């Protein structure tokens, strides 16, 4: 059904070529993104380490800012990758197979960027290890009651789980690449493929372990973003102290993550020559998913407004008023436009199957979702209990630069990844293909479909 004209060998060749044959364009892109990472992320960060968090725009009471917003954003983005991959794996969704590897990679890198954002956020990152429970002479432990500590643990677990998951799923492909490469690459893949030979026992164990992890990761992913939401919801800040926050964050995460996948897939399709593997079907399905998520997200947002209004307390009400009509109101309405209104276009199948509009929408959704995170942090802290302590927080240049730098860092990591990991799963793509015939050109439609094969 998919990729009609492809042969197994083509798959192998195409994908291995993506690893071994590197054009000038790749190096230029990598060079640019690596320099941007250095220039926009690391330099400002080093300056901030030297000067203090004051290099950012945070103040009293706006003690949290874009770094934390970025943190939630990247954690959110990390969600759809592995989580989606797991769900789709368990539901045997065939269309998952061409995209899941890059989606999982996205998870991994977003988590890494998120962890870096934590380092950027805290005042004394050189002591960040104190937040980890490690045995020490002084008997000093972190505070196990702190949602921030839950966070550290949840993210560490999720990062570990996702890393194992992506690695495990790639073992057969490493083996495939190993068999088609020479020189240092060959040696590297020999190590990475962990002695994979494709025996039945190996396949059996891999499948079992893979499914087991998939089952494990789903609740983990849900819990990670629930816990991230608790950083906020467990405070008593008006408009943050809300029971809806956990599902709100999870939905938001999957929402922005899904949109992120659309963006990444567009790029892979276009620039890595995966046109034949990533098709309208994928965009159509992701589009539907996005639409559903956008509706749930919108619902929760309206609920938030409603409860604030209905509470009748000055604290909630003022926070609401500030969000809708205050200093950052334009951003709020931008978010509504991008995340609640524009996605309604997805009702149309034609829209869902058009690449460029889908790309634009997916980017818009993520801009909107970033805005959402910014507003959660920025507007809530501006309007707390004591009006005399109200204030406005405005991000500084350093912060904005680090935000873009983090995008560049993400891109850089991704670019390196696509040269090491087969970014489309070789074996699983083959699973979706027709059984090869001697003369593929004459193969009648429908014949031999759905015959699941292994390499």
């Amino acid at each position, binding site marked *: 059904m998919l990729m009609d004209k492809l042969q197994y060998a083509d798959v192998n060749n195409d994908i291995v070529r993506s690893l071994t044959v590197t054009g000038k364009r790749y190096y230029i892109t990598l060079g640019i993104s690596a320099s941007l990472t250095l220039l926009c992320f690391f330099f400002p960060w080093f300056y901030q380490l030297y000067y203090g968090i004051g290099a950012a725009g*945070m103040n009293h009471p706006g003690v949290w800012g874009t770094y934390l917003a970025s943190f939630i954003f990247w954690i959110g983005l990390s969600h759809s990758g592995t989580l989606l991959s797991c769900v789709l794996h368990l539901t045997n969704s065939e269309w998952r197979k061409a995209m899941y590897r890059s989606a999982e990679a996205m998870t991994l890198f977003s988590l890494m960027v998120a962890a870096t954002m934590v380092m950027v956020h*805290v005042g004394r990152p050189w002591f960040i290890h104190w937040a980890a429970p490690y045995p020490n002479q002084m008997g*000093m432990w972190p505070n196990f009651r702190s949602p921030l500590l839950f966070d550290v643990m949840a993210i560490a677990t999720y990062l570990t789980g996702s890393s194992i998951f992506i690695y495990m799923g790639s073992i057969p492909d490493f083996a495939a690449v190993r068999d088609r490469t020479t020189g240092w690459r060959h040696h590297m893949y020999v190590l990475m493929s962990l002695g994979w030979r494709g025996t039945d026992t190996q396949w059996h164990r891999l499948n079992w372990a893979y499914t087991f992890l998939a089952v494990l990761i789903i609740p983990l992913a849900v819990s990670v973003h629930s816990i991230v939401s608790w950083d906020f919801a467990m405070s008593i800040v008006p408009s943050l102290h809300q029971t809806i926050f956990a599902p709100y964050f999870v939905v938001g995460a999957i929402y922005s993550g899904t949109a992120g996948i659309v963006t990444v897939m567009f790029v892979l399709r276009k620039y890595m020559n995966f046109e034949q593997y990533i098709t309208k079907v994928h965009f159509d399905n992701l589009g539907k998913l996005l639409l559903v998520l956008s509706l749930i997200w919108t619902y929760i947002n309206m609920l938030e407004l409603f409860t604030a209004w209905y509470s009748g307390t000055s604290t909630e009400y003022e926070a609401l008023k500030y969000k809708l009509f205050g200093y950052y109101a334009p951003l709020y309405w931008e978010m509504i436009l991008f995340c609640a209104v524009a996605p309604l276009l997805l009702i149309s199948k034609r829209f869902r199957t058009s690449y460029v509009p889908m790309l634009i929408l997916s980017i818009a959704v993520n801009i909107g979702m970033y805005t959402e995170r910014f507003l959660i942090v920025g507007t809530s802290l501006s309007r707390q209990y004591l009006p005399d302590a109200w204030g*406005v927080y405005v991000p500084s240049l350093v912060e904005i630069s680090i935000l873009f730098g983090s995008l560049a860092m993400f891109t850089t990591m991704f670019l390196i990844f696509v040269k090491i990991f087969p970014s489309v799963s070789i074996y699983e793509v083959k699973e979706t293909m027709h059984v090869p015939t001697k003369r593929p050109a004459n193969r009648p439609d429908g014949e031999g479909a759905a015959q699941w094969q292994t390499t």
Partner: protein
Amino acid sequence: MSFFERFTSKWEKYRKPGYYDEFDYAWTMTVDLDSCTGCGACVTACQAENNIPIVGEKQLAKGREMQWIRIERYWEGAYPNARLSFIPMLCQHCDAAPCETVCPVSATYHNQDGLNTQVYNRCIGTRSCAVYCPYEVRYFNYNNHHWDTPLDQQLNPDVTVREKGVMEKCTFCIQRIRQAKDHAKDDGRRRVRDGEVQPACVQTCPTEALVFGNRKDPDSQVSKKMNDPRAYRVLDELNTRSSVVYLKKVDANG
């Protein structure tokens, strides 16, 4: 003892109502809003006592004031019936302090005297305590501060100078409490006398609006003030069980 038993016994110990009763002190401040004139002497006294930095106009313009005690002002009504009231706002040393639960490294915790303490050395600067504190009395060191020489000679040797990246706030002048306890010990007394500890702000308040002492001593001045029918706590509905008790302003028309 198994780990679990040890754990539960500790948990019990800290959770048990009345845990703090074993200790001699529960430091408390009362603030009489009927006498506070908003003069700001307490603000400067605290700044002098506790090495609170001079942040400069630029930083203030960014909203980075550093004043462990600040005077909040609230207007009511319009001209010619406009009225202004002041309320000194400092760390309330909440017995159920929201800031304490969130600190991932326990840099801020409750001590046995009922103080919400802040361990600068341990703080990693997440600033979450400041978010969780509903009274907004936590101040963060956004940069290293500088005292133009020889202003640095004024720095109080009994109080740490905080570096960039750490949170700070009112300590109820813990260094003075410490000193008073030492004196009591030297004198062979078990406890400090009422009035022996005077935080800098209380000490200087020209209208005697601020009173400090031990609420476990029923005869102390604060205990008496707390029993005034005017006593209330700010944001009591949040159940922070604060140790700063305000006395209501009296509304008597001229």
